[in-house]
């Protein structure tokens, strides 16, 4: 075919464009932003490295040492689904917690200051998306620590264990609890929430026996139902009704009718999304229910009261993080809350697991005096105790003969609602929390040989 001048020009232009593209790809090493799938964003909580002062390194715990060396960047990855509230909260609370640490001068590990730099990718709530994000973090960004909101966690665990990357994740996937895990830790403390409330109810209201349970009809709902039904029965309660409803269903009238027909003394709603537990409370209350509502989820008073009339909460108990109260119950919770309000204008009651994970990493690194994953993993897996905005946590593992690895147990507070505000009604110390966990949850959650 005879080439025309126009054709030659087009070929030259195409060749130049390709050359520029190749040069750009070759020169771009650690890109700070990208729009390639999965949708990626880099949230850098670190400010430009500066000379350090004598300011405390972070507000959790650990010695403070001054150093004149420029802080090093400590990359922490996030694989979260940006399409659900929990994922967004994990990312946002991790960012705020990292900012608290960085604003205090950075994390001092063995005399070296580190500024936390968060790199976040969207899991898109699929295994493929999570794997793509994880691989990008590990192999392109060189990240050694990853936080996850439970989406795609099964696949992430495999990659973390194979590559010696520490993974702190939420969820109830069996892969999280494998006794072969060395680097994967379900460290958010949520496994202690239901035994905390169950144990407190059994101790405080010994005559209250009839409980109605309601769960979303998905994997998490059924797994929770299985474990919690056994836990309630172990604690001495009679489960008079267990209802499942489609996840995302907003009209829960029929569920409420069924619950009322069982005549319970306690109703325990467990929606998967942030809305559904409150919807059950509202629906059941509208049927004329006057008994107790007990919850084992992280619904803040502010969120609850947007959905449920306060009259429905006259007989309500739930667990509460340290950060929810005013003032917050610990210095780290207070610092986190102040930073959150500064960023968002108000306290909105987010799910604070992202901040918990950052606190876990910071404390473990300082105790290990190292940022190397092997050393940090050994500290976390060795029964680490740390303070977070949620409260005090302890990593605990199976007793002899058990088959599961370390999980985080949180020392919960028990709250009620008075005057529209959360009021502390009780607290469960870490030692008692461990007792309740081993008694009520561990035998049902983890397979025993």
């Amino acid at each position, binding site marked *: 075919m005879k080439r025309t001048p126009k054709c030659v020009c087009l070929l030259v232009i195409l060749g130049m464009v390709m050359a520029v593209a190749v040069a750009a790809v070759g020169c771009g090493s650690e890109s700070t932003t990208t729009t390639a799938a999965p949708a990626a964003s880099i949230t850098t909580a670190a400010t430009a490295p500066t000379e350090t002062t004598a300011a405390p390194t972070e507000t959790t715990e650990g010695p403070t040492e001054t150093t004149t060396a420029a802080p090093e960047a400590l990359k922490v990855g996030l694989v979260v689904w*940006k*399409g*659900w*509230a*929990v994922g*967004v*909260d994990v990312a946002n609370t991790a960012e705020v917690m990292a900012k608290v640490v960085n604003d205090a001068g950075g994390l001092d590990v063995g005399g070296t200051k580190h500024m936390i730099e968060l790199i976040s990718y969207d899991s898109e709530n699929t295994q493929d998306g999570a794997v793509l994000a994880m691989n990008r973090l590990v192999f392109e960004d060189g990240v050694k620590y990853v936080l996850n909101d439970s989406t795609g966690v099964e696949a992430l665990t495999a990659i973390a264990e194979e590559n010696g990357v520490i993974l702190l994740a939420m969820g109830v996937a069996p892969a999280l609890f494998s006794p072969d895990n060395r680097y994967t830790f379900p460290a958010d403390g949520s496994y202690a929430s239901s035994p905390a409330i169950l144990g407190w109810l059994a101790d405080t209201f010994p005559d209250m026996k009839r409980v109605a349970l309601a769960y979303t*009809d998905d994997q998490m709902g059924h797994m929770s139902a299985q474990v919690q039904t056994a836990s309630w029965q172990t604690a001495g309660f009679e489960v008079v009704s267990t*209802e*499942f*409803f*489609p996840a*995302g*269903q*907003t*009209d829960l*009238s*029929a*569920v409420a*009718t*069924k619950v*009322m*027909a069982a005549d319970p003394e306690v109703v325990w709603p467990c929606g998967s*999304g*942030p*809305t559904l537990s*409150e*919807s059950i409370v*509202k629906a059941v209350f*509208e*049927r*004329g229910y006057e008994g107790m509502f007990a919850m084992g989820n992280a619904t803040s008073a*502010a*969120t609850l*009261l*947007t*959905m*449920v*009339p306060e009259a429905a909460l006259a007989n309500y108990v739930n667990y509460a993080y340290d950060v929810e109260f005013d003032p917050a119950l610990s210095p780290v919770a207070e610092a986190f809350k102040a930073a959150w309000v500064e960023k968002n204008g108000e306290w*909105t*009651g*987010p799910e604070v697991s992202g901040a918990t994970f950052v606190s876990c990493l910071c404390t473990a690194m300082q105790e290990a005096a190292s940022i190397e994953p092997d050393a940090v993993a050994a500290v976390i897996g060795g029964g680490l105790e740390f303070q977070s905005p949620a409260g005090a946590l302890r990593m605990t593992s199976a007793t002899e003969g058990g088959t599961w690895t370390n999980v985080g147990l949180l020392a919960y507070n028990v709250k009620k609602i008075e005057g529209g505000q959360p009021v502390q009604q009780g607290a469960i110390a870490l030692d008692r929390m461990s007792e309740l966990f081993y008694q009520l949850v561990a035998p049902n959650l983890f397979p025993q040989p």
Partner: protein
Amino acid sequence: MNIPGQLFFDGLVGGLVYVTLALGMVLITSINRILFLAYGVFYTLGAYVVWYCVKGLGLPYAVAVIIAVVAAALVGVASHLLIFQRLQRSKGAFLGTLIASLGLMLVLNQTILLIFGTVPRGLEGVFPDALKVWGITMSPAKLTAIGIGIAITAVMFVVVMKTRLGRAMRVASFMPEIASLHGINSNWVYRTTLGLATGVAGLAGALLAPTYGISSGMGNTVIWTVLLMMMVGGMDSMFGAVVGGLVVGQLLSFGQYYVGAVIQIVVFVIIGIILYIKPNGLLGRGVDIGI
């Protein structure tokens, strides 16, 4: 407690809500020939707008509902102007508009999440306490939803069947080329239809916000139930949407009580049987959406 009565009342409320939504979706499908997957987001948008007007701006609830309807309609009109007007005339319009509606759904969902955040919202105290009649608990919010659902259904039928706009809609739907010869601006008809339908979706969201609460994903689950109703009643039949909505509403209410969450599977089986016997749905004629 009168359990059958309560279940029937709750099923009626749910059914009428879905009827309201399904009517709008039927309009878009039969007139615009678009499978508008973004429809559920307008339901969410209406709920959030009414919440913002009441809580943020301190407006009366009734005024907030009107604003929510207008806002949803305007976004619908804008989406037609910017996206669907051109795509509807292109080759392979069905796939193009389907993908565009999917993209619109994702964009609007994320926009709502970014603007209003992750915290679920609610409107407490909008209506007085529930009534109890014959052992049936009837909340004023649900009674209002029933009344408005019936009114909206009647209005939609009158608009489509008895007005010049309705005649223009039907002509533009069946014979767009002939419609233009008769001086009917098809684009204007399609735009108005989309605005009307999305406004109805916004109204449903605004009315139900005090009852069911508000979250960013609420529209995504609703759209699938609406599609189910359309399949049962017929994708192009407004009367079929009414029948489908009422039937599915009662099925879900009684089914959830007596069968549990597996009712979702039962509903799909029933729909499968209906479609096997009547592929166009109970009252559908079979709309050509140009695949």
